[in-house]
């Protein structure tokens, strides 16, 4: 899985992101190999969200390069290969759950959208509310739909920014089961977490960020559990 000969699914080379004088990311060098599940830990403002948004090509780094599967334009590569869940729901509140998913399915060029929508909505426990406007959904239901939207085009790389936000206990169990299934199917995952949880337990590798820099990596000998618990403390 972490074979050094395999090309990385995601690669950061000397990546920096600055907002004025503030460094959101500094000298990030990271290789994420296909099939890895990486938990990204760190306190608020440590750079987790920026790192994920740079990885998705949503934010252009001030310095350095990001490649996804060897492609140098991360946004174009992310379109084809990545699923992204951010802090916000990324859903249209004036559209129904089904209309939201159909919109993104059509943009991704999915031909089997009709049958797939029913399946994914059923998996998320939202089948009965498929025709309801998203604005009538609870926070947890929106988060489930957000996650489903990110998985719609069967991405090979998943970038999740605190994906358990707003989910109740059954919701977190559903998310953990979904991620476990994707992990078994060989999907590469990079997600941010706060401390040890059912989701972070899936990680095969953990990174800790401080002030925009990676200060601990379980691949370099640090213990995954200690990285996650330190970040959560």
């Amino acid at each position, binding site marked *: 899985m972490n074979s050094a000969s395999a090309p990385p699914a995601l690669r950061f080379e000397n990546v920096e992101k600055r907002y004025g004088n503030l460094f959101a990311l500094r000298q990030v060098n990271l290789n994420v190999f296909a099939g890895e599940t990486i938990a990204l830990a760190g306190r608020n403002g440590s750079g987790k969200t920026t790192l994920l948004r740079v990885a*998705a090509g*949503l934010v252009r780094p001030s310095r350095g390069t990001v490649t996804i599967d060897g492609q140098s334009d991360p946004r174009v590569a992310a379109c084809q290969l990545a699923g992204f869940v951010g802090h916000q729901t990324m859903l249209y509140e004036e*559209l129904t759950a089904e*209309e939201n998913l159909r919109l993104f399915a059509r*943009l991704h060029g999915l031909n089997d959208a009709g049958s797939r929508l029913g399946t994914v909505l059923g998996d998320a426990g939202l089948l009965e509310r498929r025709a309801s406007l998203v604005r009538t959904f609870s926070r947890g239901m929106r988060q489930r739909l957000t996650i489903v939207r990110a998985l719609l085009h069967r991405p090979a790389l998943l970038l999740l920014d605190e994906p358990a936000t707003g989910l109740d206990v059954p919701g977190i169990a559903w998310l953990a089961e979904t991620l476990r299934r994707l992990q078994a199917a060989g999907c590469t995952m990079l997600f941010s977490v706060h401390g040890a949880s059912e989701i972070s337990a899936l990680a095969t590798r953990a990174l800790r960020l401080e002030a925009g820099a990676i200060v601990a990596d379980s691949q370099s000998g640090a213990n995954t559990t200690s990285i996650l618990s330190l970040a959560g403390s």
Partner: protein
Amino acid sequence: MALLQNAGVLLEKELRAELRSRELVTTTVVFILMVVVLFSFTFDPTSVESRRFGPGMLWLAFLFAASLMLQPCFLREQVNDTLSALRLSVGDPFAILLAKVCANTLFLLLTELLLLPIFAVLYNVAIRDILPSLALVFFAGSVGVCVTGTAISAISAQARMRELLLPLLLLPLLTPVLIASTEATAALLAEDHVLRWDWLGFLLAFDVIFLTALWLFGEYLLEE
């Protein structure tokens, strides 16, 4: 091909959202109606005066109304960060801008269509014989307003003081469109009803140039 397909899908989304909320068209219609009616009551223009000042007043009203309509165009996409979802779903970001331009142009044209008969009645101007030519001028002018407005809306949505920034940037930039549209409309409303191809050509050239610029720099406009 994928570009047009994606733009079509996104245009459908824009129309569906507007059909449900009716926010943009309602606001714009009410605004232009107020300007047209208030101007008519205040100055009580004769038919000659109407032909002279009417086109300018009408296009100024369209311009201010468009700046109202264009303001939420990208702000709506920021509420739930749907713009990021769109950027991660379409290969060419120009599809997002093209859909917005088409939707905004349709909304503005619809508004103009609703307001034109009221303008004709209040200002005692005959428009029946010049409707096709008038439609052409309105179309070319509206595309110019919406192409430029969509670009500025994308820029201003990510800035501080965004509510102020859009009209401040948009209105000076649209001065050539205002002049050309007003002159072309005035020539049509004049007694000899002339379609001024020079002004129409100017408007079409403006549309093409700004649409090309939008296509070339679209990705940078949508970046965080």
